[in-house]
């Protein structure tokens, strides 16, 4: 077995940490784009499935549209902000993972609990399992 000098080990460790940080930051950016896409998707789903609520002949904007805009916006913008401010940090990854889980719940709710939307959970779990 080759014994490296302490200097080489230190430089290797530094190189590994820089590479890992760059990889984490790149993945955070990918997830940030996904968050914005999911936000747009949740607003689109709300407008498609339940644009209006009715009371007799009167209609008004359905609460789902506001939830998609406001809750979806909060879920998307927090990770995006952290990605810009603290790329690659543990906090950013944890917030992104939590937001991704919450997006599954939001999309399931907006589509009326459809079975098909539950596959968003399974897809998210697969990506989050690699994203640690």
């Amino acid at each position, binding site marked *: 077995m080759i014994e490296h000098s302490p200097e080489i080990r230190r430089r290797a460790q530094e190189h590994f940490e820089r590479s890992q940080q760059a990889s984490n930051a790149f993945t955070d950016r990918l997830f940030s784009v996904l968050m914005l896409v999911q936000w747009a998707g949740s607003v689109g789903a709300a407008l498609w499935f339940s644009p*209006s609520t009715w009371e007799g002949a009167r209609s008004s904007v359905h609460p*789902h549209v506001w939830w998609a805009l406001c809750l979806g916006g909060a879920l998307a913008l927090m990770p995006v902000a952290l990605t810009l401010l603290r790329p690659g940090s543990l906090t950013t990854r944890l917030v992104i993972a939590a937001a991704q889980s919450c997006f599954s719940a939001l999309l399931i709710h907006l589509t009326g609990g459809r079975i098909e939307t539950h596959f968003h959970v399974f897809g998210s779990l697969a990506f989050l399992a690699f994203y640690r």
Partner: protein
Amino acid sequence: MWSRQPGGSTSAPAVLPASLQSYQTSGRPTLLVAVHPRCPCSRATVANLERAFCAPQRRCPIVAFVYAPQDHAAGWSDTDLVDRLATLPGLSMVVDPGGAAAAGLGMSTSGHVVLYDRDGRLAFTGGVTPSRGEEGDCLALDALIDALAPGDKPAAAQSGAVSASVFGCPLCNDTNPPGCSPVAEGRR
């Protein structure tokens, strides 16, 4: 929370009204449902009714009261929800201007279902979804399916009619005629 806030309803007649007995089929229950054609929440009601009627032995005459405004334009009620509703087996559709006919049967919220057993006695009244716009299994749907099952002793004869909360858009507002009251007693 908004999605779990039940809509209003009043007491349904204890027996099938004479005006609806022409829809009754011998030995089968009769199901009435009120629907606002543009209520997105009621898609879940139709989906759950499809589940209830997927078994041929549960099928029975269905009378759907489709809300329309008093002065509605032609085609106001032609929506994908009504098209889907029309695919339920044994369904007769009644356009209900102002929701007055449904209100007379205790139904003032879209998605309200009233079931009369084969003897014409009230067996079930209420919604069949777990919350607004959410389809899937729930106690109310199970109760409706139990009441639909043929050969069983009528639910009304056992322990009275089952009632459940209704989740959907109100059929009435303050511009509706008398008989279609937007304020109604709540249910559990």
